[in-house]
């Protein structure tokens, strides 16, 4: 009796979970189908159904634009550099804020947090001037530098949270073994927050990869343009081939999916191997 009740509950639970999963998968389904339609299907006859007919030539259109490979490469360069640099800088700063003892640590945290509260559009003109004066305009650094700076606040905030949960005994033991503070940081503390690093890397990746405003404003030369900008260039003044634009967006989203799954696997693995155990 009790067992059937439990089974019914379980079925209801899984049915609910799967239903939500279908809703969450819908945008992905829509993006892929949208990329295989023409304007007429997208806007009037068939906005949400399966493509009829399938227009694979949309993808040919995108790839024929020629520079897609170079755009993709630029996006990869900018994003990976941003993730690498911002991770190093923010784990260091977060460690000092969370674990080390100094008067201004809370103020420093709030100061960094301010970076998340600043509306990006307001920084556009001053940053443009800054990058022109420093001759960084029209180089990959014109994007990497702002991306790193704007990724730091969130990363620090999350890392501080994770560092704080680590028991003090771990540092004490290492310290007694004669390890320096730098050794403790690199060899003990950073490995302990691996899941957090992977999580933050995903968020940083997403904000750089999809970023448009800085990427449009700080890069002028075609050879440094990023993928999202290249794809938005398919939006015309009065006429747009939306299907091809969709194909471009698919091309931009596939790397994201792959990288997300890789990172997510990394998070999962660290849980199962028990990175943090009391």
């Amino acid at each position, binding site marked *: 009796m009790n067992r059937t009740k439990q089974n019914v509950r379980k079925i209801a639970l899984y049915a609910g979970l799967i239903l939500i999963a279908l809703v*969450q998968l819908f945008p992905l389904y829509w993006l892929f189908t949208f990329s295989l339609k023409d304007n007429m299907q997208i806007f009037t006859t068939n906005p949400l159904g399966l493509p009829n007919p399938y227009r694979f030539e949309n993808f040919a259109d995108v790839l024929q634009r020629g520079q897609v490979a170079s755009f993709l490469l630029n996006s990869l360069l900018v994003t990976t550099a941003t993730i690498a640099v911002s991770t190093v800088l923010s784990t260091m700063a977060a460690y000092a804020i969370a674990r080390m003892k100094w008067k201004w640590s809370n103020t420093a945290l709030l100061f960094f947090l301010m970076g998340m509260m600043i509306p990006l559009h*307001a920084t556009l003109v001053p940053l443009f001037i800054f990058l022109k004066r420093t001759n960084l305009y029209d180089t990959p650094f014109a994007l990497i530098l702002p991306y790193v700076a704007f990724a730091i606040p969130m990363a620090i905030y999350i890392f501080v949270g994770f560092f704080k949960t680590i028991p003090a005994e771990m540092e004490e033991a290492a310290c007694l073994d004669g390890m320096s503070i730098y050794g403790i940081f690199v060899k003990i503390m950073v490995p302990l927050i691996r899941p957090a690093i992977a999580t933050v890397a995903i968020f940083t990746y997403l904000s750089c990869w999809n970023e448009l405003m800085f990427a449009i404003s700080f890069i002028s030369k075609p050879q440094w343009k990023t993928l999202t900008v290249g794809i938005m260039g398919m939006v015309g003044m009065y006429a747009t081939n939306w299907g091809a634009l969709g194909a471009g967006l698919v091309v931009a989203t596939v790397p994201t999916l792959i990288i997300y799954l890789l990172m997510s696997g990394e998070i999962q693995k660290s849980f199962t191997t028990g990175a943090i155990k009391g």
Partner: protein
Amino acid sequence: MDKVLRDRRAIAIFILPALLVFSSVVILPIAFSGYYSLLEWNGAGKSTFIGLSNYLEMFTNPSTYFVKGIVNSALLAGLSVFVQIPLALGLALLISHGIRLEGFFRNVYFIPVIISTTVIGQLWMKIYHPNNGMLNILLTDLGLAALKRNWLADPSISLGAAFFVLIWQYIGYHMLLMYSAIKAIPTSLYEAAEIDGCSKSQLSRHIAIPLIMPMIKVCVTFALIGSLKTFDLIYVLTKGGPIHATEVPTTLMFANIFLNYRYGMGSAMAIFILVECLVLTVFVQRFFKVENYEF
């Protein structure tokens, strides 16, 4: 140990690189904006110093719509904290323990966050489309044609329609953060409680939620800040319309800087958004005076 953790040189080495990059690229520009906010400047050519007039005008002149924008963003912040985060927490708890395909559900629930806002916006424009949109077609098929609406064209419901999308899109974001915090709880704690005969819901209430309070605080902070400076999706979905029904502070700031040629006014709005977020964040930190649990 204590001496090692008070080493000033080490603190400086750890914090300075981040501080330097952050100050020059983030703080310096916003300081400039603070200065611009005191000017009457069209974004090209000469400017006049006008003190706090921009700040005064944005609150007293109703045709700036700024007060309306603040009210709208406050509403969104409320929805985020009291609807989005509880839902995300519920999902995180559900999938973090004893569920088959745990990784699958976690990955799939996060998908709307991965997809660029442009795509999400276009998708919902199609769903809400007055004539061939999925929502209205669905309502007709279910015999609920009376509930059909011009979701994004009717000023009285467009705000709700737009906020629904915003709340939905970022549930996965908060879920992932809380999920990783739940996963960081040592399993030994659960095992002990299970031996004591605790049920699953008791485990969540008495062990998981208190232990991940610091992460809930992080989520609440992010949700508040994110709501007060939300821009992209609103801009794609409604552009602040119809007739200003869905304006938020950032859409107005953008319009003033880049459409109206009122650079000073736009900067003043930016500074206000910053201050507003700062005050609320300090408040949240006070409110969540939670102890850090030592395991």
